[in-house]
């Protein structure tokens, strides 16, 4: 798919209040905002509105279900259908239990690494890759805000091996090829002391999910 380019500043505005009229609302993780908007635009899905929650919620996954539920309750009367752009994302099934109560569906997969790769393909190699640390375009762009600073590695680089010592490689799942991100991924790999594997995935199952393919829903 020829994906539309969106910059971070644009995402922040559109994701907060997309403003597009429509009958489908996608509530998603901010880490997916660019990719979902790109699919929406590329397919002219004017009936789809996107609202995102902060990606930083992943640092407190116990808060994700409540945050999504609050948005569902606030918005459900305004839309014919609501879809959720989150994996389980470390909620330990709490997100799914809440969504079941509301009769709302989410994209299939435990996390974005799975649905960007394609859940089946990801699961097929999962056992051989337990020591892989995954990056996405978002993670590469936001590595310092999302990983370095919250883990204290900027202040205490000596903690690196406590966090990453058991990993054997860094796998960069590439959504949209970008030489700047490639260079940044190289630097991240150097800092973590891990070999880097670059693996183009495109949007994987996310594209079908946004376009309304039920097979990509949990």
């Amino acid at each position, binding site marked *: 798919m020829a994906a539309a380019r969106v910059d971070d500043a644009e995402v922040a505005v559109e994701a907060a209040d997309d403003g597009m009229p429509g009958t489908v609302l996608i509530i998603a993780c901010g880490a997916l905002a660019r990719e979902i908007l790109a699919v929406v635009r590329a397919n002219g899905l004017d009936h789809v509105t996107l609202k995102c929650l902060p990606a930083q919620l992943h640092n407190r996954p116990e808060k994700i279900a409540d945050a999504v539920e609050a948005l569902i309750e606030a918005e459900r009367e305004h839309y014919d259908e609501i879809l959720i752009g989150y994996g389980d994302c470390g909620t330990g099934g709490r997100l799914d239990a809440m969504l079941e109560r509301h009769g709302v569906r989410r994209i299939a997969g435990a996390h974005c690494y799975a649905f960007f790769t394609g859940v089946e393909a990801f699961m097929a190699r999962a056992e051989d890759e337990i020591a892989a640390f995954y990056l996405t375009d978002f993670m590469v762009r936001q590595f310092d805000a999302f990983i370095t600073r919250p883990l204290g590695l900027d202040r205490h680089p000596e903690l690196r091996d406590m966090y990453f010592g*058991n990993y054997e490689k860094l796998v960069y799942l590439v959504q949209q090829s970008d030489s700047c991100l490639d260079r940044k991924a190289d630097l991240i790999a150097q800092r973590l002391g891990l070999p880097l594997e670059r693996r183009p995935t495109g949007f994987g199952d996310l594209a079908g999910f946004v376009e309304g393919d039920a097979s990509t829903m949990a």
Partner: protein
Amino acid sequence: MSDDDLDLTTLNDEELVQQMHDDLYDGLKEEIVESVEILLSRDWAPYRILTEALVEGMRIVGIDFRDGILFVPEVLLSANAMKAGMHLLRPLLVETGAPKLGKMVIGTVKGDIHDIGKNLVGMMMEGAGFEVVDLGINNPVENYLDAIEEHQPDILGMSALLTTTMPYMKVVIDAMKERGIRDNHVVLVGGAPLNEEFGEAVGADSYCRDAAVTVETAKEFMMRKHNQLAAAAG
């Protein structure tokens, strides 16, 4: 030295222990090692240094972590400082026959390589007086069963960070049931995506939210066990 003006040797015992709590809080490894050496030179028993200075200091760290005042990086620095102190004390504790509350086998489940939480639990349990056998990461059910047979622990601890790996805890517990050994051991489970309901669902005795809770839970179970044994003997 804790700062340019403070000579730890000039502090009396009470002040020094208080300073160690502060230094643990701040993750100052070298200062902790120096303070442990000072207390040893003042003929403090290794067990007393462990409990009054290190474990109590880490208890305070645990409370502030639970309350959202400290975060993971700070706790890891504190843990590193305690580890350095423990490194000095461990052989002395063995020599002096410090009391043991019980034995724990602990490991991260198959498919999971995350061990920060497990390591913190292991260290806090050791500090609290438990003998800890650490199986490391990515443990298939056989590792747990073999270790249970070999070490006969009072407690089995399992850890997982991933939603995809945490169900493996049930595999281990079911295997223990099949062997008829489930009720011989207390099973404690932990990890970021877990909760109490999950602990109950897989058949664990308790879900433990963090290292401090694990220690308290383990102590409670050991107390119950001793009370039951005492009642049976009486």
